[in-house]
């Protein structure tokens, strides 16, 4: 019963702060609202009994990626005055593009597999033991491939960071 109310509260908060991200004039405020949004989503994970996912979500997104975002934005010194005026065509194309993205998302979600009934849903699936077993047994290859992706990104970063390559 409490979880239902908590779900609605968190859902409301995440949508509200998600909108604030878009509508905030100051980019630093946007980033901070986004951090709060991540927190509310982590709260949703906890409600789903997936503490591991919640913790990793906080560590990776709020703790690392958003800090880097904040880092870059603080250095850019973005002001309302220096912001270039967007033309009408740009705004129109942005609206159409994001609208198309929405359509694609809705379409793909509509045809996604049926959600199991809450009664026979395994609530312990999000715990770290079960998650680890699933990842390293059923999805070992995709898991390792994704690590190669990260390695490639790291090598690329090192290459870019080098001043001169002999």
């Amino acid at each position, binding site marked *: 019963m409490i979880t239902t109310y908590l779900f609605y509260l968190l859902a409301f908060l995440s949508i509200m702060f998600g909108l604030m991200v878009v509508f905030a004039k100051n980019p630093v405020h946007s980033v901070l609202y986004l951090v709060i949004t991540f927190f509310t989503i982590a709260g949703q994970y906890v409600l789903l009994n997936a*503490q591991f996912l919640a*913790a990793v979500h*906080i*560590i990776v997104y709020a*703790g690392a990626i958003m*800090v880097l975002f*904040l880092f870059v934005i603080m250095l850019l010194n973005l002001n309302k005055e220096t912001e270039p005026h967007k033309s009408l065509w740009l705004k129109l194309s942005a609206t159409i593009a994001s609208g198309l993205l929405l359509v694609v998302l809705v379409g793909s979600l509509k045809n996604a597999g049926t959600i199991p009934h809450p009664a026979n849903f395994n609530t312990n699936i999000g715990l770290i033991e079960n998650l680890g077993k699933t990842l390293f047994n059923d999805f070992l290859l995709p898991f390792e491939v994704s690590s190669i992706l990260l390695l490639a990104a790291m090598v690329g970063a090192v290459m870019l960071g080098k001043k001169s390559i002999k």
Partner: protein
Amino acid sequence: MTLGFLIYKIIFVLIIFAITLLVATYSTYAERKIAAFLQDRIGPDRAGPFGILQPLADAVKMFMKEEMIPSVSNRMLFIIGPGVCMLTACMTGVVIPWGPAMNIGGKVYPLQITDLNIGVLYLFGVVSLGVYGIMIGGWASNNKFSLLGAIRASSQMISYEVAMGISIIALVMTTGTLSLGQIAADQPGMHWNVFIQPLGFLIFIICAFAETNRAPFDLPECETELVGGYHTEYSSMKLGFFLFAEYINMFISSAVISTFYFGGYNMPFIARFVHDPNWLAVLGFVFLFTKISFFIFVFMWVRWTLPRFRYDQLMNLGWKILIPLSILNLLITGGWMMRSEILHFFIK
């Protein structure tokens, strides 16, 4: 969960909170005294006998000072900054096991606020959020020194979090659990993790120094270059919050180091003399605090011994030495754990 248990939890949370604040308060006094003694001075000795009331005087001073908010600052974030710093500092104490469970009237009362099954990750997550307070405060001050301090703090914390995380992973591999209560309980007597993970401990403690922004890694508030770093513009109790958060972080880091690597509340040979679990719990609490005090002393001892790093040296140490070392530690740990399989593979 009965009502009595809930009340117990609330009281326990309040006690831990009070102890945290008290220890942090007296850490400021201890820091000044230890600094003085290491430099052949006496230190504060005017307020009360041996200056024991000095923290009180400091607190009164902090509260009485004029509070200034720069007119060009972002007022809201300027106030939130130190608050976030303090919040994240206080949040970490939740998962630390302060002693073995007590048994009163047939009911078990654990001396831990909550034993999360992802305790280590929770700790790590909260620590990684600690940088927000500094960044928000530094940016909102609208001062170049504050901003530079904030940026230094965040890049330093991100860099050292990686090595810290990898050293924790090696530890978690040996313990096989992410719950701090379990980690502490798995180190009875002298079976401390520091003997299993000496390299991991070294990396962890270095990273702990960097994460708490303590010397020799106190680059963010490096006064020779950056005036006061991220708290240049702060005054009164908001400055007090920033300074206080540092001491709370130091206390919690000491507690975490004790729990992870030095057996937490365990002490060798104690089980032979004391059999009553309640007395064991009380003694465990005392032992843990002895260990914590020792590590707080080490924090201060290092601060008044080692000179500050240069910024490029800091980054070199973090990325080029500590991360490879921690990965090596991880590989060695993994290899040791899989030794029978590896031997089997080669012998066959």
